[in-house]
């Protein structure tokens, strides 16, 4: 009771502070008033503090089993171990909105506080945009979807948590993804602030680029953990299903990937200002649009979010943000002219733009596929596309991007000299060698060009990591190549498991064996573990090893079964066994052999490591603006 009141009061205080901060900071920006701006900033920090208090109240209510709160009853029960209990915080609609607001206000405050050197107006306007967004979320939390609503009757226990979500992956995957989603607001706020302040100098690019990298990295980790969870828990042998919920998480990530590349063109050459702003704004609008789509129930997804009344609110927010950003962009369009024109299409700038075109094409194609049921429903029969659509469209685009990853970093800034193609000797040599080896090794079909291009991309990335003098000062370049290498490793994993997955479903009698892709698995034992959560398991021996696949039954939930997949991972392949049906005299299992899946997780780790390494410490020295012509090859 007290917890609920305290939480509700903290939310209300946060709303008042955020609204106050938005108005005051806007005023300070217009009047160039440093004192008012400071008050506005502090109001935002105080608002963040209020959101932290509200979050602490909800977390306390969950851990303390305060079932008088509807949210606690609906999302937890007494049997949950405390880590899962703590994670029910972001398990439902209201809690995940509160979590979103928490990330927005805390990271937003930190970003504003760190932007002190960018000038009063830029800082004040960034505070305005962030505080206004925080006020929107807090208003929804206070008036529409409060996590502190009380039940009339206090139940003795809660409804609990669905068993497939009772897994460690669930503890870490949603908070990263939600944090990624909400932190796309911060680069957006800085982009808008620079427009409002009429500033297009390197200062705001450095700020925006860093906060965009933070959001992008959080989203990278969230997406990877989501794939990892789907692979280890759901038992379908895959990790990405092109479901609408997955697609909308991918879209802002793709748009930000485009931005962090072309931001360098602006940094070094003062070009593509309007383009970059468009990408930052687009990424944030895609994040809000995605949230609206999956929360409004407009699309049929295998992930069901609680469909609720917050859909129209997000739609309204989307409309306001779109009108606001387009208005400000149009108003300031004259200040967005490039300092100088692009000199040549065959240059680093040209490569970045081509990469952007491919990424935007990918965004458009994925968005089209996701929206097809809605769009076609408006004009006639509802149509829908499945994974094969996305694979056929994205495959060639991803391949072109990898080709660019092999060639682009070797092109010089401004304009390539006549012999630019000589710089390509390294990736071309690697590609030729790989092509010969693969062809001799018997690789045919689409896998042949894909792995050839991957070899070229790997060659360029590895060569970029060779030691040079002043390595620490060049850490941004090293970080970038390491991140590229991570992308290549990840792509090898995706390509390997896509082209060479083997799947077989068999029913075995005790002692009987099955051979799948060179592995012989023998059904050696059947067992049952009774208990509150009953479990059936079968042991399969494979050489000296034994794999135990199981099915758990949750009697309290209508006998819902949960597979416990057995996975034996090596660097080359995963043997992945799902138990479909078992009895002492037979076992039906599906055996997948998934080549190179481990490379996906390793690649994502290398990618994030590269980003961290390249941007650690004080603001990494931004590369010297290029004036003189750079010799070939420039790496």
């Amino acid at each position, binding site marked *: 009771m007290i917890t609920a009141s305290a939480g509700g009061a903290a939310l209300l205080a946060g709303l008042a502070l955020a609204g106050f901060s938005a108005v005051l900071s806007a005023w300070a920006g217009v009047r160039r008033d440093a004192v008012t701006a400071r008050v506005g900033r502090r109001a935002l920090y105080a608002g963040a503090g209020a959101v932290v208090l509200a979050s602490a109240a909800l977390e306390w209510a969950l851990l303390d089993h305060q079932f008088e709160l509807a949210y606690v009853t609906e999302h937890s029960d007494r049997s949950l171990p405390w880590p899962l209990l703590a994670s029910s915080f972001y398990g439902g609609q209201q809690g995940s909105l509160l979590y979103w607001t928490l990330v927005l206000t805390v990271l937003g405050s930190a970003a504003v506080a760190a932007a002190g050197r960018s000038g009063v107006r830029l800082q004040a306007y960034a505070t305005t945009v962030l505080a206004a967004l925080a006020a929107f979320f807090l208003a929804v939390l206070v008036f529409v979807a409060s996590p502190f609503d009380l039940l009339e009757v206090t139940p003795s226990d809660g*409804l609990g948590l669905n068993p497939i979500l009772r897994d460690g992956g669930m503890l870490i995957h949603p908070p990263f993804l939600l944090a990624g989603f909400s932190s796309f607001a911060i680069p957006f706020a800085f982009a808008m602030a620079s427009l409002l302040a009429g500033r297009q100098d390197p200062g705001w690019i450095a700020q925006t680029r860093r906060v965009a990298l933070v959001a992008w990295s959080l989203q990278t980790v969230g997406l990877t953990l989501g794939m990892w969870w789907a692979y280890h828990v759901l038992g379908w042998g895959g990790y990405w299903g092109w479901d609408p919920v997955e697609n909308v998480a991918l879209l802002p990530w793709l748009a930000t990937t485009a931005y962090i590349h072309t931001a360098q063109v602006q940094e070094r050459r003062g070009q593509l200002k309007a383009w970059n702003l468009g990408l930052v704004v687009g990424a944030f609008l895609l994040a809000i649009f995605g949230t609206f789509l999956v929360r409004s129930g407009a699309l*049929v997804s295998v992930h069901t979010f*609680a469909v609720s009344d917050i859909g129209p609110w997000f739609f309204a927010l989307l409309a306001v943000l779109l009108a606001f950003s387009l208005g400000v962009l149009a108003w300031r369009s004259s200040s967005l002219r490039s300092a100088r024109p692009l000199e040549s299409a065959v240059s680093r700038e040209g490569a970045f733009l*081509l990469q952007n075109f491919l990424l935007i094409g990918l965004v458009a194609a994925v968005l*089209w596929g996701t929206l097809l049921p809605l769009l076609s429903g408006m004009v006639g029969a509802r149509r829908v596309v499945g994974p094969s659509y996305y694979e056929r*469209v994205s495959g060639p685009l991803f391949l072109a991007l990898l080709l660019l990853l092999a060639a682009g970093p070797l092109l010089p800034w401004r304009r390539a000299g006549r012999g630019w193609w000589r710089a390509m000797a390294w990736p071309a040599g690697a590609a030729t060698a790989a092509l010969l080896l693969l062809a001799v090794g018997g690789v045919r079909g689409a896998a042949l060009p894909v792995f050839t291009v991957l070899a070229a991309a790997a060659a360029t990335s590895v060569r970029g990591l060779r030691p040079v003098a002043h390595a620490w000062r060049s850490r941004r370049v090293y970080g970038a190549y390491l991140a590229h290498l991570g992308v290549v490793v990840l792509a090898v994993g995706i390509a390997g498991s896509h082209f060479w997955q083997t799947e077989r479903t068999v029913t075995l009698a005790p002692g009987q064996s099955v051979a799948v892709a060179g592995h012989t698995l023998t059904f050696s034992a059947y067992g049952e573990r009774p208990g509150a959560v009953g479990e059936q398991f079968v042991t399969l021996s494979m050489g000296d090893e034994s794999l135990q696949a199981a099915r758990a039954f949750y009697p309290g939930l209508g006998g819902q079964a949960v597979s416990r997949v057995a996975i034996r991972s090596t660097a080359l392949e995963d043997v992945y066994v799902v138990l479909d*049906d078992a009895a002492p005299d037979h076992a039906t299992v599906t055996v997948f052999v998934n080549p190179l899946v481990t490379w996906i997780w390793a690649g994502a780790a290398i990618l994030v490591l590269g980003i961290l390494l390249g941007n650690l410490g004080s603001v990494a020295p931004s590369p010297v603006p290029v004036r003189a012509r750079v010799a070939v090859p420039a790496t």
Partner: protein
Amino acid sequence: MTWMRIGGAGAVVAACVTYLVWSAASGSAEYYRTISEVHAQPVSGDVRVLGVVQDDVQRLDGGQEVRFTAADSGASMTVDYRGTLPDIFKPGIQVVVEGRTGGDGVFHARTLLAKCPSRFTAKA
């Protein structure tokens, strides 16, 4: 000149993406049908149908095949599916099946997706 080349590259990418989207969508787009629509107007090609699994689930062939009745707004159809079932498959849940009606009047599903229970919310 430079901008024309870059614009040209952009136009080529846009044309390629349009072609890819068009060819992939016409090759793999399926129609959403309700169960009563499946009965009323048979379509050539696969369709996607949403239905609730009824209590008559039979497992055949050592659990590798399953046959059940799917119902939605008063209409129902028999569905036959061979393959791995999702963990949460049981009477009462919503499934999306993709496939076509055979000559035997049974809907032969090529894929079967179960709608995940609401995130973190248990439904007994």
